[in-house]
C-alpha cells in the first residue's frame, strides 16, 4: 500500500465548502420540518361517511398525519444511498491506486451511510407500525434495504476481522463495491415488482403539489449537505490522526 500518499488534502475548498454546506443543511432541514407541519397539505386516506368544509376545501376522506414521516424518511434514505456510492467510488479508486487515503475515505463514507441507514430504518419502522400495523414485513423494498444494512454492518465486521492494512483495504473495497450493487436494486425494486406495498415516490405522475414538493426538496438537499459536512469533518479528524501516527513513527525512528 502506498504509505507516502497517506496525507489527504484538508483545509482546502472542500472543507470550507463543507462548513457552509453543514450550516445550510441544518437550516434547510429545519425549514423543511416547519414547512412539513405548516404548509404541506395532508394526504387523504379512506373515505368517511360525509363531507365537511375545512379551510376552503370540501373534505370527504380521513386526513393522514403519519404521511409527514415521509418528508424525512425518503431524504435520509437517499442520503444513505449516495454515501454508499462514495464507498464504491473510493473503493474503486483504492483498487486502482493502492493509496490508503481512498480506503480511509471509503470507510468514512460507509460510516456516514450507516448513520443515515439507521435513521431510515427508524423512520420507516414508525411508518410501518402505524400504517401497516406491524413492526416489520418482508416487502421487497424493505427486504432489499435490510440486506443493504446487513452488508454495511458486514463491511465493518470485515474491517475489524482483517489486521493487515493492505489486505483489509482490498477486501473492504471489494465488499463496499458489492454492497453498492444493492443500492439500484433497492431503489428500483418497487418499480420492478408491482405487488410491492411500499409507495413509489420518484415518478412523473407522483401528483405531488408544490406545497409538498418544496419541503421534500429542502429536506433532501438539507440531508445531503449534512451528510457531506459530516463526512468532511470525519476526513479532517482521520487525516489529523494519520499525521499524528506519522510523527510518532518519526520519533520512534
Amino acid at each position, binding site marked *: 500500500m502506498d504509505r507516502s500518499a497517506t496525507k489527504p488534502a484538508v483545509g482546502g475548498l472542500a472543507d470550507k465548502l463543507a462548513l457552509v454546506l453543514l450550516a445550510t443543511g441544518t437550516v434547510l432541514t429545519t425549514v423543511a420540518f416547519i414547512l412539513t407541519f405548516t404548509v404541506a397539505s395532508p394526504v387523504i386516506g379512506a373515505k368517511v*361517511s360525509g363531507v*365537511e368544509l375545512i379551510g376552503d376545501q370540501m373534505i370527504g376522506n*380521513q*386526513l393522514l*398525519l403519519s404521511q409527514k414521516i415521509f418528508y*424525512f424518511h425518503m431524504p435520509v434514505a437517499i442520503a444513505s444511498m449516495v454515501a454508499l456510492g462514495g464507498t464504491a467510488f473510493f473503493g474503486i479508486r483504492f483498487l486502482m491506486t493502492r493509496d490508503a487515503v481512498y480506503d480511509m475515505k471509503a470507510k468514512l463514507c460507509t460510516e456516514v451511510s450507516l448513520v443515515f441507514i439507521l435513521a431510515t430504518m*427508524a423512520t420507516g419502522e414508525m411508518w410501518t407500525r402505524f400504517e401497516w400495523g406491524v413492526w416489520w414485513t418482508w416487502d421487497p423494498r424493505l427486504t432489499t434495504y435490510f440486506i443493504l444494512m446487513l452488508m454495511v454492518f458486514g463491511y465493518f465486521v470485515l474491517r475489524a476481522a482483517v489486521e493487515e492494512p493492505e489486505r483489509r483495504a482490498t477486501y473492504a473495497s471489494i465488499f463496499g463495491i458489492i454492497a453498492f450493487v444493492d443500492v439500484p436494486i433497492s431503489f428500483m425494486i418497487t418499480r420492478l415488482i408491482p405487488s410491492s406495498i411500499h409507495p413509489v415516490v420518484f415518478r412523473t405522475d407522483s401528483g405531488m403539489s408544490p406545497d409538498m414538493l418544496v419541503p421534500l426538496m429542502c429536506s433532501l438537499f438539507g440531508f445531503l449537505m449534512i451528510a457531506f459536512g*459530516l463526512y468532511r469533518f470525519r476526513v*479532517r*479528524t482521520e487525516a489529523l490522526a494519520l499525521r499524528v501516527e506519522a510523527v510518532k513513527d518519526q520519533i520512534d525512528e
Partner: protein
Amino acid sequence: MNSVLQEIYATILPSAPFVIAAYALVWLVLFVYVVYSMTRFKKVESQVGLLEQSLSGMEKTGDATASVLK
C-alpha cells in the same frame, strides 16, 4: 365536533406519537454521530498535545546533553 369531522381526524392523534418518534429518532441518530465524531476529534487533539509535550521534552534533553558535551 360532529361525527364526520371525528372520522376525518380519526387517525391524527393515534399517529402523532409515531410521527414525533420518527423525527426525534432522526435527530437522535445524527446527534449520536456528531458526539462520536467530536469525541474522536478531541482524542486525536489530545494525542497532538502529548506529542508536542514529548517533543519539547526531547528538545530539553537534547539541550542538556549538548551543554554537558561542551
